[in-house]
């Protein structure tokens, strides 16, 4: 559930962002406006989402949703920001400039789901560099092993 104050404040911040949608328990935004939204959320004195706790993505078959879980240490708010990107063009701007903690998490998401975070160096982090394919995509099949 969104905190009332957050829900009230979001439309104000999102005035210049037509793709921002406030849902019941999350907000979604287009990828072009994602960095602007996160920066606004972080710098807004009334919300101050200064901590990116989690960053991950899900392959939904037709699209990939990248989710950012933000926390405000000052007010204790939580917010989930989702961003849908097309599966055949999985590019999204990197938020490393805003939250340095996104560094390894973006690399992990790239590694396992093939989401390309633009504006930074991306290298595989968990799998070896020569690995082909992105294992957490639903069409990935693993030959060999028990599963």
């Amino acid at each position, binding site marked *: 559930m969104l905190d009332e104050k957050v829900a009230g404040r979001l439309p104000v911040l999102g005035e210049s962002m037509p793709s921002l949608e406030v849902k019941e328990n999350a907000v979604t935004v287009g990828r072009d406006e994602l960095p602007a939204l996160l920066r606004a959320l972080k710098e807004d004195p009334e919300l101050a989402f200064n901590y990116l706790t989690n960053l991950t993505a*899900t392959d939904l078959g037709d699209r990939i949703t990248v989710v950012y879980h933000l926390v405000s240490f000052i007010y204790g708010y939580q917010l989930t920001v989702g961003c849908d990107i097309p599966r055949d063009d999985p590019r999204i701007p990197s938020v490393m400039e805003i939250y340095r*903690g996104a560094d390894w998490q973006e690399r992990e998401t790239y590694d396992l789901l093939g989401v390309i975070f633009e504006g930074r160096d991306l290298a595989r982090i968990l799998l070896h560099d020569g690995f082909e394919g992105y294992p957490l995509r639903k069409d990935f099949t693993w030959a060999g092993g028990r599963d």
Partner: protein
Amino acid sequence: MITGTDLRDRLEHDIKTDRYVLNMGPQHPATHGVFRVVLTLDGEVIVNAEAVCGYLHRGIEKLAEARTYTQVIPYTDRMDYLAAMLNNLGYVQTLEKMMGVEVPERAEYIRVICAELTRIASHLISVGTYSIEIGGITGFFYCLRDREKILDLIEMISGSRMTVSYMRVGGVSEDLPAEFLPQVKKLMKELPAAFDEYDGLITGNEIFQARTKFVGVLNPETAINYSASGPMLRASGVNWDLRKARPYSVYDRFDFEVPLGRNGDCFDRFRMRILEMRQSVRIIEQALEGLPEGPFMGKAPKVIKPPVGEMYHEIEGARGILGYYLVSDGSPKPYRMHVRRPSFINLGLLSELCRGWKLADVVAILGSVDIVLGEVDC
């Protein structure tokens, strides 16, 4: 006449020094498992440290997609294998939140007792291995000696020492055995004396302090920006313990403090763990006192099928914020599971912390981050 500054200038310009690359790991005594740091060194000074992980990657997130929700529980044990109970707790709580399952009081108390026991066990390993990394081997054995008593208790409850698979959606798999309560009470009496012993042997030692104080300083802004969590964040003075900030389970009923550090150096990060263990003992004592009678398992459906949707839930793990992100498509198997592993994200700070310090400090800093490779690589 040559002055000191002249000499330094000459040394810097006339004497040509070369940097070299030292590959630390994946087989190295101080890397807590299979983990590699590629160090670029100038003499013994770190110019750059690049962490390379993934040697223990088993693809638990992918494996979970092929298993039912209950069958994932044993896999969560194997992420942070030193604090398996906490991993279980985070996972089942996420599912409970998704499905709206009520957990009986007794089960909540049992969960808190188990979680805090595991936290102590995990911190004991951290304290002990840190002592080894600084060079004092004896401290490690004292910690393991006392951890053994906790593992015996956990084994008594769940049948396994480390990979417990104890918690279930709606409660726990079995009630506490009768002989557990007197033993845990006895242990809680003994533990503070053991912590004093570590303080005397390790914390109070001047050599130890010389090695760790003001080494690898992490200021609060950087810690927050890098998404550090757990003892590492609190050592920098940021008061963020989910047990207090956003109480889950029955943590709001207990009286405990959140220890905070001042300098954010290795020494503070180390001391946080001993202080947290003392608080955990307090929590367990209160939980034992308030342990209600009743069922240990709530009304949870036999086949777990959460409604379509997603859920992200966090608890305070032993190493920081442990979050589970679950996406359900209404089937008995998770559509997507992602785990926010605290040591993975904390480890992202390593190269930032190491730069400019000596080779020996890399070990001190890495130890103070306290990673478990099973969790980093997942």
